[in-house]
């Protein structure tokens, strides 16, 4: 956790920027702003018109575990992989029934390999995402909220591994993106029952192809190659209980990764005609996700959680977490500010 100083610094900076109530006109509450419950269990799956939410999130996974080709749970005894993702997320309730989300991650990554005697580390941009969430159905007491969401991920993270002169294992820089855009369409529902709530979602991610700087393609005398990650399906379901100013949430998730394809560029808007499937690059996994949401005020929440994969698979793209999530629990801490 000591490597989380950037997120902490950012958090403190933002806190310092928060003005005192009514000091500056710019931050006055507006009449058009929708009501917002102080309790998570009563909150819909959209933010509400006129609300601006800034959140700072840190995710950490420190592991020496990995998945085998058939989902075996394996470990290195000579290597340690630290994966962190620090995300600034801006969410704005642009419509009564819709909000926009825009998030920008940075990564601090480190791989210590005793066999090679290397200790590679660095900080990089990740891939930003932007999405629009629309709520076609809502009842308020008790709450029922059903949303649909369209999300785009665009490749801004680091694609260059540095010099390949001495082979791929001598990379100097971590790759923090697949180098390709994604479009995800999902639906999610939440139903409140007193202090309880249940929530479930389903999503499909179409992954576009793109030239990727980390991909060397030599068969056809290419300098770089074109890659199309496998499309993904995800299902999840969770329950929640509100205990005073704290909401506890726990659930399960299931993911299916499709086959990755690689090759050269063909013509057309979807130039995938020359791509060949990479055998064994598909897989599936499931796991659990638990969170505790503490309400400091109606405008400030603190969230702590863990994302625990129970089953995964070797998808052949280590250490590109975007293509190949490694085994290990990811811990999450998040501060949410709402204006």
């Amino acid at each position, binding site marked *: 956790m000591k490597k989380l100083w950037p997120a902490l610094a950012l958090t403190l900076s933002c806190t310092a920027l928060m003005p005192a109530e009514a*000091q*500056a*006109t*710019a*931050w*006055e*509450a*507006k*009449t*058009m*702003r929708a009501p917002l419950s102080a309790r998570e269990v009563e909150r819909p799956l959209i933010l509400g018109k*006129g609300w*601006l939410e800034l959140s700072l999130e840190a995710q950490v996974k420190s592991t020496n575990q990995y998945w085998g080709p058939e989902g075996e749970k394996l470990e290195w005894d000579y290597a340690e992989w630290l994966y962190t993702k620090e995300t600034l997320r*801006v969410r*704005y*309730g*642009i*419509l*009564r*029934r819709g909000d*926009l989300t*825009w998030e*920008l991650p940075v990564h601090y990554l480190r791989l210590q390999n005793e066999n090679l005697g290397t200790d590679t580390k660095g900080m990089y941009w990740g891939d*930003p995402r*932007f999405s629009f969430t629309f709520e076609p159905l809502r009842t308020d007491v008790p709450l029922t909220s059903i949303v649909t969401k369209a999300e*785009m991920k*665009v*490749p*801004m993270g680091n*694609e*260059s*591994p*540095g*010099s*390949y*002169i001495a082979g791929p294992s001598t990379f*100097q*820089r971590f790759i923090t993106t697949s*180098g390709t*855009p994604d479009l995800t369409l999902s639906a999610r529902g939440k139903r409140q029952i007193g202090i309880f709530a249940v929530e479930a979602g389903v999503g499909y991610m179409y992954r*576009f192809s*793109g*030239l*990727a*700087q*980390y991909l*060397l*393609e030599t068969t056809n*005398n*290419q*300098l*770089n*190659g*074109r890659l199309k990650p496998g499309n993904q399906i995800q299902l999840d379901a969770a329950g929640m209980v509100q205990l005073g100013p704290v909401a506890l949430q726990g659930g399960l998730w299931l993911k299916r990764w499709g086959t990755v394809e690689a090759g*050269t*560029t*063909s*013509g*057309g*808007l979807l130039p995938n005609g020359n791509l060949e499937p990479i055998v064994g690059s598909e897989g599936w996994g499931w796991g659990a996700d638990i969170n505790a949401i503490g309400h400091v005020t109606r405008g400030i929440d603190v969230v702590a959680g863990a994302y625990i994969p129970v089953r995964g698979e070797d998808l052949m793209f280590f250490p590109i977490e975007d293509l190949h999530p490694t085994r290990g629990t990811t811990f999450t801490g998040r501060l949410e500010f709402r204006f």
Partner: protein
Amino acid sequence: MSRISRIAVAALTLGLGSMALAPQAEAKFVSPYNHPDLDWYTIDTEHFAVHYPVSKKTAEEGNPHYINAEYSARRSAVESERMWPLMCGELNYFLKEKIHVVILDQSDYLEGFTIPSWDWIEISANPGGYFYRMRGRGEWFSDVLIHEFAHVVSLKASTSIAEGTGGILVGGLYSDGIRDMDTGVQFYISSNDAWWWTEGGAEFWSNNTGYYWWTSARDQNIRMTVLQDRLLDYGEWESRVDASDWGDGERGYQQGYNMALYIRERFGDETMARFAIEYSKGWRPNWDSVIEDVIGIDGRTLYNDWVAYVTEKYEAVEREIQADGQVEGLELKGSPGAWEFKKPSDRDEYEKSDRNERENERHSTGTWELEPKFSDDGKYFGYNGGRIFVTPTPEGSFSAFAGASTSDADVSDEASRLSWRLGTGATFSHQWDFIPGRDAVVLTMSEDALSTPFQYWSKLKLEEDGYDWKQLYIGELTTTTRKVKGEMIETTDPGSILGQDKIMDRYTAIPNTMRGTDPNVSPNGEQVVYIEYFDGGTNLVVINLDGSEKTYLTEFHDGTMFQRPDWSPDGTKVVFSMFRNYQNDLYMIDVASKEIEALTWDKHESYDPHWGHDGLIYFTSDPDGIYNIYRMDPATREVEQVTNVLGGASSPTLTPDGNLVYTMYTAFGFKIWGLAGDEFMLRDATHRFNIAPDRGEVQAGLDYSEDLSFLESATKKYKFTRAMMPPTATPLIRYGNDSMTNWGITAGFQLFMQDFVEDHGGVIMAILGEDTTLMAQYINQVWYPSFFLTVYRVQSKSDFARAFDADGNFSTTADQTYFEGEQAQVQNMVFGGMSYPFNGNIDISAGASALSFGFQTISDTAFEPFSWRATGFVNATYSNISQRNPLPRSGTMIDLNYAHGYTDIVYAPYYGVDTDDGQRLDAYHYNSYQGRITKYMPVKPIAGWDPLGLLGLARKQQHTFSVDLQGGYIDRNVQFNDEFRAGGRHPYWFGSGAVQPNTFFAGYPGFSLSGETMAILNAAYRFKVKDNINKKIGPLYVYRIDAQVMGTAGNLWSYRAPDDASKYYTDRFGTRVAYDEADLYRERPFRDYAYKNSPVTGTGQFKENYFLYDAGAEVRISSIMFNRAPWNSFVRVAYGFNEIRGVGDVNGDDVITTADNGLGDALSAESELPGVRVYIGIGTGW
């Protein structure tokens, strides 16, 4: 080498894009001038904060432009608080946020607007001179505030998109390099309430809260609009298109107001508010559907019902007036209009003609013709048509008074030679007067109106203080004698620009009359009575013509508004109209004793009094809801009705022969009419006015001023930190491919914030994706120039393929191999400087920038810096272009730029040097000079010559010829990134100037042409294809189509490596490098071909391009999307006649060839054949 070429193209692209970030001098909403001479104060009330200016230096300290808007601010604060519960109650929307009202008092012109989501209302303290003519009352503060506050509440209550953003900008550009086609699409998804509802609603709620009523001025607007068939049609009704014709803006307001009253009558009091509530439930692409959801019938049916209602209503009024006996005389000025027909077939022909043509014909006799009058000696006739037009035309020459039709041709020749056009923009709508006994007039002009011949000719007159107040002038009706067509004639035209001094000599400013307007000269010709403005109110002043003996006849300081003072024939009294304490009446004042006497005391709107030489007071009033001319005997107070018109009569003046000239309101403008003395109606109207008010009541009204001093304790010095507007972010979702297989999707936002008086502003932009833009800009508008500082980083990725050819001959393909790749580029820039509005036409700016550029490929662990550059620049822009329909019809724009640059190549793999045009470049200084002149000329008959009538037809169809010349010179050989560039550009990225007219060479690939010397000339001929289309298609309203054809000639020339083998060596890339830079050859424009864009043939010879040419055609469609956002589209096709080569991926196939010609440059071996390039912009404007 080709890699660098590619990168350089991108770098320059980004650099140009960044120029759009530089702020314009006219950064403030209303005035281009900053005012460090003012302090600002704030009155804080429960729901409002009112900010107002006070001069730092008082009048006593010698400040000729002393401002103190304290009363205006206090009055606004009180009015605002009074209207708050009423207006919020109308929409059941009680505001939590404070609304900030900024009082402007720096100029003498009417202003009033709001941006509700910014909680911002800005109004001028001075309403100017014509407000009451359109709206019918003189009360300014409550009228403007209630209207703007109605907007604030109704638009906040109805907004379906949260106020933190105005909307979402979604768009993209797809460039197909193989098909040479760029297609851009853009949508701004925003609120789309209908114009009639927005403006009509603001008027309506102002009515419902008791502030407005359906005045006679509003009624005459709609009455004549209906009767003269000028109602806005359904599409115009919903979408604001002021481009159509005269009066459409005001027509839209009043048409909406009237519609709202109709809706209230038919569907109930709250129906208009229910539209707001319904729309607030969720954004919908077509606001129109709100109507159906609320009242059960669609908008078009509602509109048609209303049209039927008002038509029936006003046709009944017309029948009533005709039955009563219409008394109005004839239009005085010009020939009988084409609408007055001698036989039915003429009328049929006229009705078949284009609506716009018909309207233009009716507009041709003027649209704002006010204050007609003859000089006392009957020698001159004049009127205020925006300027004062004076002609030596006797009364008897006009058919209105001659009793028979007279030919204008009889008088037109002399009238045209001896006509004066006096004044400036400040003259508009103000009273003026002849000076008895002199060939001169007194009029209102702006204080900075006069200039020397050099200043007039060069336009180099500095506006040093940012003030241009109104002032009184004397204008002499002088003539000159000069030779025209071999004959010496007397004329008012000096005949040349240098003769302008003769025009300037006509004027003498009357001292001590700053902020004075509406002069009227005493019968003895020695004194002027006029209206003087200060802090939201006016007073009556008398002064000698030489500016001496200034006497205030009144000393109000409470928002009192005077109008049209006029001397009595004996010179002892002045009659005037005054709005005070919410009531408008006629009064007269004894000049010696300053005793005021009310002539009327009622609810009628009586104004425009004129004391005729017959001793009677002629004035305008509306006791029956229609403005007519009445006359009152000041002794007996008996009143007679003089006219009985259908439109509206105002500005009456009795002529020396006892006739009446006045202004008639029509749906085509305010026109001058004449009524012969023997045709006066002279119907007793005494009983319709309160002519004998209680003197005590009148005096009490004169004495009463509301005490606003309690606001003193709520007043503090303005602090911008406590008056920041709510930030507004625009989400941006963009698509921009950098190759035909690359999905360049990016998203982010632009955030804007400033304080309410616009001293400090900032923009932050973050767009993330494969192409990332991060930008922050601060603008300071406190001191005379505005200062800006911009920091940005642009990072982008591009896909490409490289072709390698084993034998270097690309005509044989078997030995070629292709390599795909992706690389990233980055550009960091700091850009700061100042801009200053030198005057109304010229802006100057200066500043400096520092830019670094680098790139990253697979083998780079970080961005490799390639070069950095520091630049200082000075820029001056002159423009007198104001009219756009949709492009300028006339005017000139001149842009001059000088820059000094210092560039250092630091690319480590090249050991910090680069070769360009035969020279090894490391670090160097250079000077760059650029100029551009664009001139738009309306096509029309040339000095009356139009043998075939085609030029006249072209004028009707708004044909415009334009030329655009662009030149540039860099004083040494520079690296490719520093050279001038040309080639077609789509406006999606580069703004509206990118394709108009055409000097970027649309017939050639973007940025493919480069060099240190540039000369490009374009000519274009544009014409209207059709206007008044007025088609509403869902959320889209299409109203006009234009087309243009154009052609371009020019070139860019550069340096060449020496041909003599002893003078160069070949570097490791096989390019020639001169031993001595003196051996480089600079190509001479017009004499040398440009080797950089001259392709190499199979035999190694150049196809010499001395000049490049293109020709093209374009169709432009003007439309409005979502009722408010211009959504203009175009298709342009341009043919480049020359085969060229150039830099980077010249042929646009995303494959860069690596073979080069060895001349020492960054050129690829590709060439682009002559051919067509297509630019399509769907909603991307121009």
